[in-house]
């Protein structure tokens, strides 16, 4: 006890006024200065690579693309089925015809929703509503329960704009951010491929100048999907890459620019402000750019996704979520749960390792798939 008392004194006597509310200092070990310790190139110093061909058609390595299988983006029913196949499962048996509502059923439903990563509090609220609906006689059987839950969840997405904001005058600039390993680079390739399939000219900006071989990775993808790429060396200032990419895009009359960024944990403040700076640089070169800021979220992520969304929104005002890796067994339910707290629309879903494994997010389908 003695030590608690002393600690109390020290706390009062020593803590400098105002410090309590301040954010934690970042470890100096991870300052951007150190990250960009390599050659700090001015915005003009980038080496550029012009693609040898106009995008879209034949690639050298077409086995990666299965171009022939592709019809159009709207023809992604197959993908949707894939989602559905993944999401369905343990809820299915619960809504058998004529099944009566009892505590056991409600508990099973609660468990299933929580196990879909929807979050204990949002699920709690849903269950409360459901119980009320049961008491009032609004819901009388298991089938009614299903309808009720679906309707409540779908309400959250009513009137939400899920399309990408495209600039009326090209290029449209899309910035892509996320934590380490969430799937940014692959998601960028998918987006780029989607645009390329629409006949648009795509330019990728290799803004991840930090991770080893990140530039090479994006370069390989650019080659596969027939996109142009602007890159600097590893260690270069990512803002300079972003600026050069826009310069090139304007000069070449490109339709869409997708800016890659290094993965960063949302709690690293210096890295988050670096991201903010990148965004500012984009808007300086092209008014209203970036037109979209997408957060790539790993579908296997749990409740930490909310913290990610909040802090990335604070830093760069993300306009949408790209939910990656939904082809596993994770349900990605956190994107539903977080809507109570932070309203960020999901715009795309990633369903595999190939460039065509992308689909536009369809909340109705997503929610139906959870229950059917």
């Amino acid at each position, binding site marked *: *006890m*003695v*030590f*608690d*008392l*002393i*600690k*109390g*004194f*020290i*706390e*009062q*006597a*020593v*803590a*400098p*006024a105002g*410090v309590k509310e301040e*954010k*934690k200092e970042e*470890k100096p*070990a*991870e300052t951007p200065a150190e990250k960009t310790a390599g050659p700090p190139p001015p915005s003009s110093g980038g080496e550029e690579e012009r693609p040898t061909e106009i995008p879209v058609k034949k690639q050298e390595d077409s086995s990666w693309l299965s171009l022939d299988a592709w019809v159009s983006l709207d023809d992604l029913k197959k993908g949707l089925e894939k989602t559905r196949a993944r999401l369905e499962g343990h809820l299915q048996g619960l809504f058998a015809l004529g099944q009566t509502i009892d505590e056991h059923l409600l508990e099973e439903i609660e*468990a299933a929703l*929580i196990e*879909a*990563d929807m*979050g*204990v509090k949002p699920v709690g609220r849903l269950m409360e509503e459901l119980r009320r609906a049961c008491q009032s006689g609004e819901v009388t059987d298991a089938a009614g329960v299903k309808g009720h839950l679906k309707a409540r969840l779908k309400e959250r997405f009513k009137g939400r704009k899920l399309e990408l904001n495209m600039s009326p005058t090209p290029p449209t600039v899309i910035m892509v951010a996320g*934590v*380490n*390993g*969430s*799937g940014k680079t692959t998601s960028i390739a998918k987006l780029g491929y989607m645009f390329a399939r629409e006949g648009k000219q795509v330019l990728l900006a290799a803004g991840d100048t930090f991770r*080893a*071989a*990140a530039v*090479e*990775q994006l*370069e*390989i*993808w650019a080659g596969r999907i027939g996109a142009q790429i602007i890159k600097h060396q590893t260690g270069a200032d990512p803002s300079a890459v972003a600026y050069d990419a826009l310069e090139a895009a304007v000069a070449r009359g490109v339709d869409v620019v997708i800016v890659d960024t290094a993965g960063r*944990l*949302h*709690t690293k403040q210096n890295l988050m402000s670096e991201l903010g700076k990148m965004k500012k640089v984009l808007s300086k070169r092209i008014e209203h750019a970036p037109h979209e800021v997408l957060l790539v979220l*790993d579908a*296997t*992520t*749990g*409740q*930490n*996704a909310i*913290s990610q969304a909040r802090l990335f929104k604070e830093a760069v005002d993300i306009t949408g979520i790209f939910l990656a*890796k939904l*082809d*596993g*067994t*994770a*349900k990605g339910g956190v994107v539903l749960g977080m809507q109570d707290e932070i309203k960020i629309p999901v715009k795309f879903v990633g369903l595999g*390792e190939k460039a065509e494994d992308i689909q536009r997010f369809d909340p109705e389908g997503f929610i139906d798939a959870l229950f059917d």
Partner: protein
Amino acid sequence: MFESITKSLETVFDRLRGKGRLTRENIQEGLREVRTALLEADVNYKVVKDLIQRVTEKAVGEEVLQSVTPGQQVIKIIYDELVGLMGPVGQPLTFQEGNPTVIMLVGLHGCGKTTTAAKLAKLALSKGRKPLLVAADVQRPAAVEQLKILGKQLGIPVYSENGGQPPLLCEKAVEHAIKNGQNTIVLDTAGRLHIDEELMSELREIKERTKPHVILFVCDAMTGQDAVNSAKEFNSQLEFDGAILTKLDGDTRGGAALSVKAVTGKPIRYVGVGEKLEMLEEFYPDRMASRILGMGDVVTLVEKAQAAVKEEEAKAFARKIKEESLTLEDFLDQLQKVKKMGPLQELMGMIPGMGTKMEGMEVEEAQMKKIEAIMQSMNKAERKNPEIIDGSRRQRIATGSATTPHDVNQLLKQFRFMKKMLKQMSTTSPFRMGLPKGVPVGMLKGKRK
């Protein structure tokens, strides 16, 4: 690491602490809140359910009802359960004498295998081993390149081929290592879904061909409920030996640590706490459980405290507090004993209830020294009876401690206030830690230089 879960659990226990004896009802309420906290931390639903069941059984029995400090008892039970779930301590890697040690890393996409492979190789190098990194991820574009760059940074050779079948590649890499005298081989395999049968059988083949001594499942600490599914599947296919939890340097609550251990029974061997290649730490379940409970390393603290302060002294100190006869002399004495126990920052973290209160607050040793210097510049009489300190004494003390009379005044003011607070605290529950809420902090602050 587990700051957020600590925070929510502390709220629960703050509430429990004030209640005296636990009733059946408030055990339930407490457990419900623990359940919420654990679920919000992404501990798997079923794992949480099991835990709550076990704790309920223990807590509702006589043990708790007969206890004098029920709050302590509940914390202890939950703590024990958490330690039980995450423990025992995984043995750090052991390396084979003579034969090369083969370490195989497996996991989902983006969980951090490549970075972890480099970190492990670096660790092996630091233990005098001769590591070889093997780029067995031929799937992801530029993955081989990435490992090569990391290897170059570390001065560790990397085995790679252009394309090729990973099982064969790994087998050849082992032969290559033996030929070249490398005795620690780290296989960096491609990320894959646990439901991808083809790729999972590829892993089995790699295992077959290279006979790894250690297979480690790399798991992103931010993983949600699904951690149990991937861990279970990887384990049933490969019988891995342990897990490495990555990206723990964020604000994730890391419930996956509990889940993985619970469903596979395999220990967590290491945790990744940063992008830098030396940021790999051993995993301590007890420490982690303590943090979860907001208890800090209370056990360690108690041990250290016992060594530094005799119990009678502590009692006398407590009596003085009650009688409001505590002097600066006593205080200086205690302060010096606390200092013996280790760096202040570390100690504060260990004190129950301090976890959340410490957030964003830096206790500077320099400030501590200043306080100590002021007290040491007083004479015994002054420390025993601070009331006698007048203007000229104050000036002398200030000069002696290289501070200002204002600083001296501040300290005296704070001491008087603390005495009052301590008395109040000593009359409330002994379990209640920290200063009462609503202390006008700003008023007490010393001037910042």
